């Protein structure tokens, strides 16, 4: 091996080939920290006595000034973060988010590519030298290879008086591994140091070898690109003819996207409503018989919902179009068999929800909520006046409906027996909620999730509460913009996860700790079983 070859090899192994890649690092806070520590250690004075004040300030001002300029150039931190209730009245003591909740909120926002919100959790000037995900070229690269972060858990670790360390472990899909039935790849984590309610230091361990990502995805893909598109490969890899480091030029990123999609077999995401199996990544458009009879109206403007699945998952109820152009409920086998319109309501009928035994469908109309006996074809009104009740869901025992009542001032969650007795408040001001809507009960009826706000609190945010009247808990980082749900299909049958959708696509949220993963594009989704979603495209 020649001198030149050795030379090239060493240069290629340079962990930081380009110092400007480190640009977001901020040393000011560390300098302050160090200053503090040094001051505490009297046996190691920073400088001799008489010069003490001046040089110290000099360092800090000097560093702060220089960093100020750099941050101005490379970091755009929003003054306030829409996810965080910074300019609202402080929450009650017991509502102060715990370090773990802050960590989950941050990783959620990061995983959803909501970098502005993610940055809102970080102390201005926090140490993030080991947080490569924030650097724009790297982040863009992750997006181009379809990186999906699946938060596993966040756990508190060592802490001192001032701060707590939290480790959040995650799995990921990348290079379209999900589409190929490979992965997800575990063993990666964030280490966060949290003080007050902010993250003061963050580092990221990205595992790619022991978990098989390198062997199963990175290397086979490298071989495939080199064999089939050597000219592209020269653009895509910064260390070509080695293939260990991606180039992040625009041209390179667009090639990474194209080639990784092609490599994975190029299954495009359906443009119509479809069924997504989260275990296999398989995407199956709904049968044409259903697609052809679904109303094209999105229903979002009315606060309504399109689909509901029967509890045995054999039947779909959905919003179709009646002969007069009005919205009416139709049902069909999930395979598209025997499509039929089941309501002929004088006005629009939408937001269907099946009873647990599959004999009834509740729905929403402008006059109130109705329950239809599917076999007989007769509807009975169960709520109203006042009109405006929305989002029905049968209680697990099938005796009542949970729904959102517009109320006098603010919406609240109520239940009403389907035989037409009077309604009872489930969640309202007495539970501390100023507004509560989109309520959905867990399959065992012990929990309810909703969108809303605390009295005088920020909102609308996603909450989870026990139905025994305990105080609702905010699922940190989830709000009406990114986590709207269809009450009739919010929960998995096993009660472990909820699904919601919004500006970041479709999210699956673990009930235990509020960890959210983005699973697909789409504007709404319901569960069909514990691992299968029906997704509204668009």
């Amino acid at each position: 091996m020649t001198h030149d070859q050795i030379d090239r090899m060493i240069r290629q192994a340079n962990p930081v080939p380009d110092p400007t890649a480190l640009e977001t690092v901020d040393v000011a806070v560390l300098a302050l920290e160090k200053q503090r520590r040094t001051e505490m250690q009297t046996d190691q004075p920073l400088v001799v006595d008489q010069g003490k004040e001046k040089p110290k300030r000099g360092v800090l001002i000097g560093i702060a000034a220089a960093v100020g300029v750099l941050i101005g150039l490379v970091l755009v931190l929003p003054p306030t973060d829409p996810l965080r209730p910074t300019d609202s009245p402080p929450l009650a003591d017991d509502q102060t988010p715990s370090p773990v909740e802050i960590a989950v909120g941050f990783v959620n926002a990061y995983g959803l590519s909501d970098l502005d919100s993610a940055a809102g959790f970080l102390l201005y000037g926090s140490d993030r030298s080991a947080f490569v995900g924030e650097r724009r070229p790297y982040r863009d690269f992750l997006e181009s290879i379809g990186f999906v972060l699946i938060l596993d858990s966040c756990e508190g670790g060592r802490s001192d008086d001032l701060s707590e360390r939290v480790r959040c472990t995650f799995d990921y899909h990348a290079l379209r591994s999900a589409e190929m039935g490979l992965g997800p790849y575990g063993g990666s984590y964030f280490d966060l140091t949290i003080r007050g309610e902010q993250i003061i230091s963050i580092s990221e361990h990205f595992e790619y070898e022991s978990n098989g990502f390198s062997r199963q995805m990175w290397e086979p893909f490298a071989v495939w690109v080199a064999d089939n598109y050597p000219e592209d490969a020269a653009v895509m890899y910064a260390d070509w003819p080695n293939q260990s480091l991606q180039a992040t030029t625009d041209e390179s990123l667009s090639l990474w996207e194209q080639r990784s999609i092609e490599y994975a077999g190029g299954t495009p995401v359906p443009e119509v409503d479809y069924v997504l199996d989260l275990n296999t990544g398989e995407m199956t458009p709904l049968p044409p018989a259903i697609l052809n009879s679904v109303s094209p109206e999105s229903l979002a403007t009315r606060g309504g919902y399109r689909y509901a699945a029967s509890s045995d998952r054999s039947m779909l109820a959905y919003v179709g179009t009646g002969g007069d152009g009005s919205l009416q409920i139709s049902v069909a086998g999930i395979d598209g068999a025997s499509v039929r319109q089941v309501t002929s309501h004088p006005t629009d009928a939408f937001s269907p929800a099946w009873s647990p035994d599959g004999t009834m469908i509740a729905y929403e109309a402008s006059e109130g909520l109705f329950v239809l006996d599917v076999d007989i074809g007769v509807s009975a009104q169960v709520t109203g006046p006042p009109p405006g009740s929305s989002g029905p869901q049968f209680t697990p025992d099938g005796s009542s409906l949970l729904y959102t009542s517009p109320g006098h001032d603010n919406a609240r969650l109520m239940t009403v027996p389907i035989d037409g007795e009077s309604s009872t408040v489930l969640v309202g001001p007495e539970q501390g909620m100023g507004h509560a809507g989109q309520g959905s009960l867990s399959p065992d009826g012990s929990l309810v999730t909703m969108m809303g706000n605390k009295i005088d609190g920020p909102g609308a945010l996603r909450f989870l509460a026990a139905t025994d009247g305990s105080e609702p808990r905010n699922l940190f980082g989830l709000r009406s913009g990114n986590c709207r749900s269809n009450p009739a299909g919010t929960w998995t049958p096993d009660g472990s996860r909820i699904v919601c959708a919004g500006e970041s696509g479709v999210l699956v949220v673990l009930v235990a700790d509020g960890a959210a993963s983005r699973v697909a594009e789409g504007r709404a989704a319901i569960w069909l079983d514990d691992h299968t979603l029906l997704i509204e495209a668009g």
Partner: protein
Amino acid sequence: MMEELSSPERRFEMLYAEHRLEVLAYCTRRMRAAEASDACSETFLMAWRRIDDIPPPPGALPYLYGIARRVVANHLRTLRRASRLEKKLQSLGVAPPPEPSALVLQSFRNREVIAALQRLKPKDREIVMLYTWEALPRQTIAEIMGMTRSAIDQRIHRSYQRLARTLGPGQQAHPLPSPPIAEKGGR
């Protein structure tokens, strides 16, 4: 006004703005990232204390590297002590602190190279790294290391020979595995 510009504070600001990333890169190449930023800020604290000794450009950066080298060496010593303590704590059932991370996707080959570098003597390794990673001229390296130019030449030559022996045949020992899924993508 002119006095303002050449004040120590001002010179330090310039030095910092100019070379912060290079010093940080120097440290990041030699230690884990979280510790590297610590070492970088310490380097600048020390530079501030000696601001009057620091030569004007182009001599400033090699001077900073010289400080950083000692800071890093100190840190690594402390870390080794800490890791011994950690092992002891672990044996007592106390959880170790989380570990910081690697920066980029490094291939097997690069890691082999880095492992080979680590087998060099500390001084030789530093010289090779300054030469290749910091891409400094040999004369400058001689100044940083306090050695003669010809001694640097010799050390680089000897280190490369050693690296060629460690890396030469082993380099082929880790070919890319045959792609389990190439068939699917390869159509």
